[in-house]
């Protein structure tokens, strides 16, 4: 059976992805992500091993313990407002990346921007560069 430390869980769904018996159930609506660990009798610890936050432990089976549930509000992109990640996941990215990589050349804190907007920003930046280059060549 799996014990969950909800304060450590990132809500990344690694455990649910690697579970061979679909005992870790995910539900995602537009604004929320929930993870539900079924009481499992397996002695398998794949989810424990693959948890990036070390939030899971294998404990002896006990029927009286309630099945753990964790829910996260998804964070909204600061440009388009679409919900794209859990807060602990973004905090984790902010913790592992060096500070100089967390802002782009124009000072944008891109970690708080969704991947779709990041691609659009990159396309616009490259286009500006090209247009600038052209006007420099033929004034």
């Amino acid at each position, binding site marked *: 059976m799996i014990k969950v430390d909800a304060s450590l869980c990132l809500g990344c769904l690694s455990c649910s992805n690697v579970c061979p018996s679909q005992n870790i159930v995910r539900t995602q609506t537009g604004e929320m992500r929930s993870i539900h660990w079924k009481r499992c009798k397996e002695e398998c610890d794949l989810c424990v091993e693959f948890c990036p936050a070390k939030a899971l432990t294998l404990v002896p089976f006990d029927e009286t313990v309630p099945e753990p549930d964790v829910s996260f509000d998804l964070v909204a992109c600061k440009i388009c407002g679409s919900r794209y990640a859990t807060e602990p996941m973004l905090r984790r990215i902010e913790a592992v*990346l060096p500070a100089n990589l967390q802002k782009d050349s124009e000072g944008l804190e891109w970690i708080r921007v969704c991947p779709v907007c990041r691609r659009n920003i990159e396309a616009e930046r490259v286009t500006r560069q090209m247009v600038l280059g052209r006007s420099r060549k033929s004034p």
Partner: protein
Amino acid sequence: MPVYIDISRCIGCRSCEVACQRVHGGSGHINVHFVGDFASVPIFCHHCEEASCTMACFSGALHKEGDRTVFDVEKCTGCGLCQLACPFGVVRANKIAHKCDLCEGLAEEPTCVTTCPANALSTDFELASRRARSRAARAAAHGGKR
């Protein structure tokens, strides 16, 4: 070696997208974006020197091998941290991560490069600046007019 782009040459035909999808079983890693009427820009992995996706990957699935950022599918848990750590939004994760592999083991050269009919993509970092220099030289030879 990574793929470089000379966007002044891109004609927005999306052949690179199709080629990438064909080689990678239907899920491609390159997307052509259209910016107003100005430009079409293929967006794909830069194989960054300081690759944030590899820093965020806790299992070692994404890592640097020389100047390439490579992905070991066996180690991926699908946590999606790499997707959130990519400043350009070009690492995708849907139960498993996928990103540009430069067609390693699938083709001799990246298929987007060999397919591009406008020669906008190349694996030669110097090519775009050589082209710019020769354009300038041609212009000078024609009395400054192009």
